[in-house]
């Protein structure tokens, strides 16, 4: 990452799309950049934070990040924000109106779609926003283009008085490729100038600006037709010509090296005339786009009725060569090439797990113990893993912060069967500050009977450990004011006696506190207070060990879910009453163990002791 920061103009580097975008944004002279972490976009801001002469922040959520960038743009600074696809859903309120108001300093929004679903709750196509908001969409296919388009996007934004969407996918963000970088251009901040007709979006003012927004789209259409980012790779095999964008272009060139390919980088408004030109030269035209048939439908609406697209190709996931080749060959009536030579062995799955000593485990271990009596509304973060083995202690995950409102809805919609169940909401610190606070307030305001568990591990865990308003540190690791969760929820109206701050490592206390608070028919908040094991705030204690002679094989410690604990021997025992018992004798990987002692608390026969004490006894 630092290599890109220090790289001299014209040097060639192996950069991820995310690092390449950061370089492009910096070279464009941007002065303000904001984001909330989200896979696969997170590293853009991490990378940008290393460059000089640019303000970069982690915002509390994507909407605020967008607003910070809008404020920067209004003040004449080239401004940037980045988010994952679902982040733009959150930011869309601000976005849909700034697109009417326009920009002063170039305003670029990088939005990363998780095509192929590596780490998201849905797979959505952010190119829709270009249509919805009447703004141009640029789609890089690799790191070099990501760098170039990021830089160009600011010029485009200023020249056409519009925010610009830089649409990325996982295969751009997380692929490293060779990039030749350039020089930073100087772009001074003009400073904010009052202009109420421009910036105060009352109906009268906004109405006056709407025609310009529509006119702008027409001008952008002409620009797209002539853009060097839209080019034809001619080919000798004229049976099928392709129109494509993003990394699908790379897969296409790999799959059909002789086919003519119209590669679109400036993809909205769609340059229809360019497509018509190609259509005239080939027998069939196929639109290859990830993931929705957007260009396809617009081209059909423009009169290109015979084109193909999603009638041949899947509407989900990546359009890699192993998807493209069979689809197109089948269409042409050609024999399919042989695929793999060796069989696909499918050994056991290896689902992601919580880390050894993860403080979330204590909470889920306890919730699993009372599973029959609770409905558990979950949220987005590492703790979503509580839905998996061995806890199976999560009932819902929809979107950031949704655990709150959903829990309240569950509480208000009880049946005869569920009327006595407790409703619990589980949310992390970063997610609570992102979008949970409002839902919490709604629970209080509407007198919900919900027990809210805020798992404060002092980091944004799943995206790799970023700071937020609750960690006391900023994007650059600088000291910042730290939110006090107890005071915060008290201010939202939770009774002080219903707010409990506990240590998630002390299992009996965790269990008792949840039990007690769920029994009280009003809102309570339990805050667990232990840093993420991967964070700078975590300190290891001393590792533990299972004393073989004392282990009875009850398997309780396995249910904690710690990956440092494994079964070393199983035994089937038939009890005198005929019941069959599966005994699991365990062992602890002392190199992984941090000494959190959650498993010690789960062990009836006290067979888990400090490793050094066990060594001394031997």
């Amino acid at each position, binding site marked *: 990452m630092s290599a890109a920061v220090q790289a001299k103009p014209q040097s060639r580097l192996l950069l991820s799309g995310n690092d390449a975008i950061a370089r492009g944004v910096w070279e464009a002279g941007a002065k303000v950049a904001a984001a909330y972490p989200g896979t696969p976009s997170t590293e853009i801001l991490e990378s940008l934070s290393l460059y000089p002469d640019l303000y970069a922040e982690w915002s509390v959520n994507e909407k605020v990040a967008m607003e910070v960038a809008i404020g920067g743009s209004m003040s004449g600074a080239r401004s940037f924000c980045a988010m994952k696809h679902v982040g733009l859903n959150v930011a869309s309120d601000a976005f849909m109106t700034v697109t009417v108001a326009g920009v002063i300093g170039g305003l670029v929004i990088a939005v990363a779609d998780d095509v192929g679903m590596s780490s998201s709750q849905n797979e959505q196509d952010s190119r829709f926003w270009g249509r919805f908001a009447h703004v141009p969409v640029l789609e890089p296919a690799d790191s070099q283009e990501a760098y170039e388009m990021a830089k160009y996007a600011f010029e485009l934004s200023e020249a056409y008085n519009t925010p610009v969407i830089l649409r990325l996918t996982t295969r751009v963000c997380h692929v490293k490729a060779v990039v030749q970088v350039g020089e930073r251009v100087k772009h001074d901040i003009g400073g904010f100038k009052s202009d109420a007709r421009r910036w105060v979006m009352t109906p009268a003012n906004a109405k006056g600006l709407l025609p310009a927004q529509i006119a702008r789209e027409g001008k952008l259409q002409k620009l797209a037709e002539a853009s060097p980012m839209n080019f034809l790779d001619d080919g000798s095999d004229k049976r099928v010509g392709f129109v494509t964008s993003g990394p699908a272009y790379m897969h296409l060139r*790999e799959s059909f090296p002789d086919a003519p390919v119209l590669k679109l980088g400036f993809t909205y408004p769609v340059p229809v005339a360019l497509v018509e030109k190609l259509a005239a030269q080939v027998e069939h035209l196929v639109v290859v786009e990830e993931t929705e048939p957007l260009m396809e439908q617009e081209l059909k609406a423009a009169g290109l009725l015979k084109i193909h697209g999603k009638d041949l190709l899947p509407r989900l996931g990546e359009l*890699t060569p192993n998807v493209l080749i069979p689809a197109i060959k089948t269409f042409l009536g050609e024999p399919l090439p042989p695929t793999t030579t*060796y069989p696909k062995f499918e050994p056991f*799955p*290896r689902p*992601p797990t919580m880390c050894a000593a993860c403080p979330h485990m204590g909470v889920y271990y306890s919730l699993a113990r009372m599973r029959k009596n609770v409905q558990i509304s979950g949220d987005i973060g590492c703790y979503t893993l509580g839905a998996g*083995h061995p806890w199976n202690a999560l009932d819902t995950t929809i979107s950031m912060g949704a655990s709150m409102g959903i829990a309240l809805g569950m509480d208000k919609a009880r049946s005869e069967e569920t009327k006595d169940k407790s409703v619990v909401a589980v949310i992390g610190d970063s997610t609570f500050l992102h979008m949970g606070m409002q839902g919490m307030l709604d629970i209080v305001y509407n007198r919900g009977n919900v027990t809210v568990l805020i798992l404060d591990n002092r980091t944004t865990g799943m995206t790799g450990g970023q700071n937020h308003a609750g960690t006391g540190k900023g994007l650059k690791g600088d000291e910042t004011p730290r939110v006090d969760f107890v005071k915060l929820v008290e201010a939202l109206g939770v009774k002080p006696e219903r707010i409990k701050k506990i240590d998630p490592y002390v299992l009996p206390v965790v269990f008792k506190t949840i039990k007690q608070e769920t029994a009280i028919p009003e809102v309570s908040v339990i805050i667990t207070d232990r840093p993420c094991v991967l964070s700078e705030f975590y300190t290891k204690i001393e590792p533990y060990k299972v004393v073989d002679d004392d282990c009875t094989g009850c398997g309780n410690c396995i249910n904690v879910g710690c*990956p440092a604990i494994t079964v070393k021997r199983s035994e089937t025992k038939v009890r005198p009453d005929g019941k069959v018992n*599966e005994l699991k004798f365990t062992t602890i990987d002392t190199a992984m163990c941090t000494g959190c002692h959650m498993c010690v608390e789960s062990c009836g026969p006290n067979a888990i002791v400090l490793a050094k004490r066990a060594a001394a006894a031997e």
Partner: protein
Amino acid sequence: MTDVITNILVCGTGGQGVMTAAEILSQAAMARGLDCKKSEVAGMAQRGGVVTSHVRFGKRVWSPVITPGTADILVAFEVAEGSRWADMLRPGGVAMVNTIRLVPPVVSAGLFKYPDDPVAQMRAAGVTVYDFDAGAIARELGDLRLINTIMLGAIADYLPFPAEELEEQIVGRFRERKPAMVEVNQKAFSAGRDAAGNAKTKTSAA
């Protein structure tokens, strides 16, 4: 160099150093002036899950992903992960496998079974597998983190450029930051080359 593309799939589990190994391979190709692409799987896979990285280099690389059935080399940091990705190999491709068995919680809890002998399984299907215990070599050299260098050493003789160029990429990383680690990494690299050679001899004899 012709316009043939070399495809290397590096696989293992979260935290094993798969990404670093792929990065070093890519840098070595780039130092040769080749075009190179490296795809990563990030996100939830980091939490002890399956990790793969696709490395492709040559005169001009288009797709960043290796098409199943076209990998020249499979570098497996864990033996069952080797079998999971064996179908990615082209006919005659080589699987270089570290024999360590990392048992995930779902297996240890009895929900799934770890295959008895993934290497035998692969061989029975006709895959060319060279396997050895990289962990044992690393322990002998005194540092488990050397597994990465050992595995890279093991594939060094199967690349379209001299093994020394790959070695230089590894050593170069340490020369500035941790010069004390240079020698042991050179040893690990050679040990990996030897281990692969021995595994090949053993396999051919069998």
